[in-house]
């Protein structure tokens, strides 16, 4: 504003010299503080913020973890994930037994009872497509939107927790819960399956080849790691929607809905290699990790696509939220 004299910058929107006159440091605070004020003032003239306030100390992770952990949906989701393997075990025990004769085309479900490892792979395969997606979408989609719906978001922001920091802490905790969910299911399945079906070598779906159990155990770590990475897209998508809406269910549902659309598009073979760039396309690439020949290419592509989407979605979430008018 170089022409303030004629253009009324005295009342201008915050950039003109008129405001500048007021922006000087409050050097006179101590002197002018009345006797009554002295007792109650918790301020320092240097920082102009309350004593003890530091932006980087706001919303510590442990606080956010506690805030989220006591929620019913957190507990229910973990309960469900931990119970699912046992439900499956019971289902396999009570279901009509096959004659033991394996078909030539071995499906992963046919082999589920072959060993604890097979069972864990089966449990992961049946849950990765939907249950884990919902779990991750829940933890990441709910986190900001629920605060908005409770109106607690505005008090956190006015505390003030800087917006970037709020999102950062929130997504760290949400990803932490998501990771815990993705990890706890196969681990519990491994435990349940081992107790129910024993500790044997893993039999590979399709060919029925066998890999020694100890060889496959580190591969199982790869499987879980890949499952985590591939869920990043859901997490980021849910998180982005979470910062845009006041409705937690909207955020979760929106992320899951888009996920389903991507899955449907993936079935359209006419899209050809374009489908490779759908976030869901490489979801099952972890099966390569328990093949006789460990093949990284699919998982590399899947991780690449996943990280790409996640990075952009999260960046957009931060950018939007920074400038967003919080009206909830």
């Amino acid at each position: 504003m170089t022409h303030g004299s004629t253009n009324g910058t005295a009342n201008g929107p915050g950039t003109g010299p008129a405001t500048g006159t007021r922006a000087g440091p409050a050097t006179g605070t101590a002197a002018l503080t009345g006797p009554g004020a002295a007792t109650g003032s918790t301020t320092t003239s240097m920082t102009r913020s309350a004593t003890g306030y530091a932006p980087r100390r706001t919303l510590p992770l442990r606080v956010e973890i506690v805030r989220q952990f006591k929620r019913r949906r957190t507990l229910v989701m973990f309960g469900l994930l931990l119970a699912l393997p046992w439900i499956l075990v019971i289902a396999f025990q009570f279901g009509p037994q096959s004659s033991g004769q394996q078909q030539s085309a071995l499906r992963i479900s046919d082999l589920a009872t072959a060993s604890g490892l097979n069972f864990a792979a089966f449990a992961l395969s049946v849950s990765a497509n939907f249950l884990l997606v919902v779990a991750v979408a829940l933890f990441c989609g709910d986190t900001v939107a629920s605060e908005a719906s409770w109106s607690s978001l505005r008090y956190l922001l006015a505390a003030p927790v800087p917006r970037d920091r709020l999102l950062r802490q929130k997504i760290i905790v949400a990803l932490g819960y998501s990771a815990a969910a993705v990890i706890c299911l196969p681990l519990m399945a491994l435990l349940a399956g081992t107790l129910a079906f024993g500790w044997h070598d893993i039999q590979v779906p399709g060919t029925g080849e066998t890999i020694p159990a100890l060889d496959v155990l580190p591969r199982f770590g790869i499987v879980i790691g890949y499952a985590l990475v591939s869920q990043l897209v859901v997490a980021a998508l849910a998180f982005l929607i979470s910062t845009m809406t006041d409705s937690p269910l909207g955020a979760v549902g929106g992320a899951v809905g888009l996920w389903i659309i991507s899955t449907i598009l993936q079935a359209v073979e006419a899209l050809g290699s374009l489908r490779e760039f759908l976030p869901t396309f490489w979801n099952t690439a972890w099966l390569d990790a328990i093949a006789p020949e460990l093949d990284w290419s699919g998982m590399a592509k899947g991780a690449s696509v996943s990280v790409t989407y996640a990075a952009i979605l999260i960046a957009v979430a931060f950018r939007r939220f920074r400038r967003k008018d919080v009206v909830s």
Partner: protein
Amino acid sequence: MKRVAALVAVLALAGVVTWLVWPSASEARGLDQRIAVVDGPADDQRVELDATFFPAAGGGKAPVVLLAHGFGGSKQSVRQQALRLVQDGYAVLSWSARGFGRSTGEIALNSADYEVKDVKQLIDWLAKRPEVRLDAPGDPRVGIAGGSYGGAIALMTAAYDSRVDAIVPQITWADLADALFPDGGGQGPANGVFKRMWAGYFFGRGAPVQGGGAAQGLGAAQGLGALSQQSVPLTAEQARCGRFLPAVCEMYQQVAKTGRATPQAIELLRKSSPVTVAGRIKAPTLLIQGQRDSLFPLGQADANAKAIAAAGTPVSLAWFDGGHDGGNGEADWLYDQTAGWFGHYLKGDGSPVPERFTVTRDGGRDPGTRQRIRLHPESTAYPGLGGTATTTVTLKGPEQNIANPPGGSPASISTVPGVSGLLGGGGGATNLSVGLDMPGQVAVFESAPLTAPLQLTGSPSVKLKVYGKGQVTLFAKVYDVADTAQPPNLPAGLVSPLRVTVPDGADSVETTVTLPAVDYRFAVGHRLRLAVTTTDMGYATPVEPASYRVGLAAPALAVPTVSALAAPTTGVAWWVWAMPLAAIALAALILATGRTPSRRRILTVRDRRRTTTAQQDVSPDDVLAENDARTVTAQRDNGRSDTIAKDDRHAATAQRDDGRSDAIVKDDGQAAAVQGNGGSGVFVKDGDPSGAGLVPGEVEPVSGEEVPLEISGLTKAYRNGELAVDDLSFRVERGQVLGLLGPNGAGKTTTMRMMMGLIQPDAGEVRIFGDRVTPGAPVLSRLGSFVEGPGFLPHLSGRDNIELYWAATGRPTADARFDDALEIADLGKALERAVRTYSQGMRQRLAIAQAMLGLPDLLVLDEPTNGLDPPQIREMREVLKRYARDGRTVIVSSHLLAEVEQTCSHVVVMHRGRLVSAGPVSVLLSAATSTNGHGPRLEDVFLDLIGEKS
């Protein structure tokens, strides 16, 4: 934004609808014909061929493709492929060969005397069709494609009829005698081992059911039907020979009985063998052979290719994943290759021709679809079955005794013709089969685990030493052994039979065995196992029991490799690493550019305001008469401070209100005084009605005293452009309890949200203790707020909520003053209950307590008394007054004017986003009293101000 979205949606919908409604190419109509031909060695046999002619889809004169069906099929078998070719601009003639379908005649196995003559007459017939392009009168532009039986007729016809311009024979034979009587020792069919099961299928009524490729198409289904249907009673002759030519039938019956090929049989079969006449083929030939084919293995195509190439004719060879034993079939890929070949040599449209040698290889699973993917590495030269290089793999194993069981049973199993393809073809990996060797019948020689992967392409060979007497029939095969529990793989299920004769007087003989040609990759750590068995289910073996000893004459297995075929590098695709990096860079960019709030919107608002300003400048005299925000702006442009401008606006308001201006507006002296106070004080004080902690207006600080709240020029527009807060300016001093008054929609809450940094103003600013409020500005830590109702985590108790909230501020617990705050909340034991069980009043009190945590210097409360009962309201009033008395500042918005009157020292009245009045409560009240006789009621004043007085 919405319009763009709607436009995109409409366009997408339109696109989808168009795509759905777009007329698909009309189904080509075939013309069914019965074409009479004459054939036989003496050209005296009349045969009617059942044919269908499809003119090209585009009309006009088109090159024509003759589509031949496989054994056991008919013209219907190739219908799908015909339709596809028709769409691609070819005329197509499909016909049922003599002895098949509705054609008359007997099967002569593509003999030059019979079937070849038929097809030549079909070409004659085509030359007369107006839809067919001619090279010369009577010479149509014609290609022939077909699989198996149909492939052989393509080769045979091309050899006998120079009018043929291009052929694509698939999974077919070069030498029928050699195919049925193979000998891995290389001594020809006379010494060969009879391929009993395949021959049985071939000559029996039940034709082999395996569709090898596109040319088979429906053939597979028909074949299946043929296996299960047996409805029409047969005559004795039909039952014996089916529709075979008697000579063929006789020959088969003889060789099948003895298991040995007689010279007559070989002569007859050779008449049906392209290899004998391949040198005459001038039509460019694309040979497509299946890797899973124990009937016509890759060696057959090798023989054809060499024979045709020797004559200088262009030949390409493709080994695809399919064949008579199943495999994937790769129908689409085969069609593309075929269409490319014909496109180049028939249409001359410059289609890229398949390279001289192409091999389909397993590309692993597509991680997305979990389907097998196939790679098609190419080589510019066909290396033959010996490869371009040879890797020698050392085999180890002692000489071993093996026995031929009496009757040749039980037999080892490598491939079960016609069955293995059905059961295992689709499901498993390519080229994987499990062989089954009978104990006591197999000698095994193994290599050490491979230290590098070995890609075998062609026929390995090994030199064996066989001890025995007379003729010894053996079967050699190479397994891929992984050192795990999984069974060894027999690549493609192929086995190489051999018959050696131990010379009289000698006890052993050495022989070089050519093993089956395959393309197979042995992984690192796997071992190669040469197995030599005495039996194989698919072959005729001696009935007499016998025992032999088998050893390695040289411990070396020569493995041909073709380095030129190295698969296209399947390294990590570039985007795998590039895309995430780009995304992260983009994310960084998104974050970096988003760090400061965009000024664009503000500028727009400002520009708009400036425009109106300019208009107003034209007639400054009228400006005063208008009570419009623009008035303010216009006057500001006259060089006056905003304080004055505001006062003038008040004047304008007052003028409208029938001369009641003196009730509200400060007199000139006051305005001047304010102006003298640095030009920033909007809030004009006239005495101190509450007397509590007010800084007197006269001692307005000049050296930068921290003003608790200063709002200047604050403007915020709704999305639709309507101003929620319009150029609002006021200032609150330390110790004041300020009431923010206004009807619903006056912009109070929006203003408060801007104070908290929740909403970004479009113009103007809020300063708290001198610091400009931005989202998350540190100075907000000195602000306690309660706006638009409480915000708690419903699942946590009141105490947890309060404590966690304080923990979230990151400030020391000792500063929180929990006890003071909770005393205000006065929740008692309810503090330990989950907040969701609270009443509204309880939440309200808890929220106010939360706002007071840490005793902030500036407390902003929005409707704090909502939901409180009268005693609590009274108490709250005292709390607020006390709070301000300690030198802090309180801002309260309320609808309850009486409340404000009793609680607040000062008041700001807003209406429609604008400031209507500001000042000490007492001044407002006294002004009201002076105009009418009523008692000093804030309500009257307020209603006056907002112009709602009735």
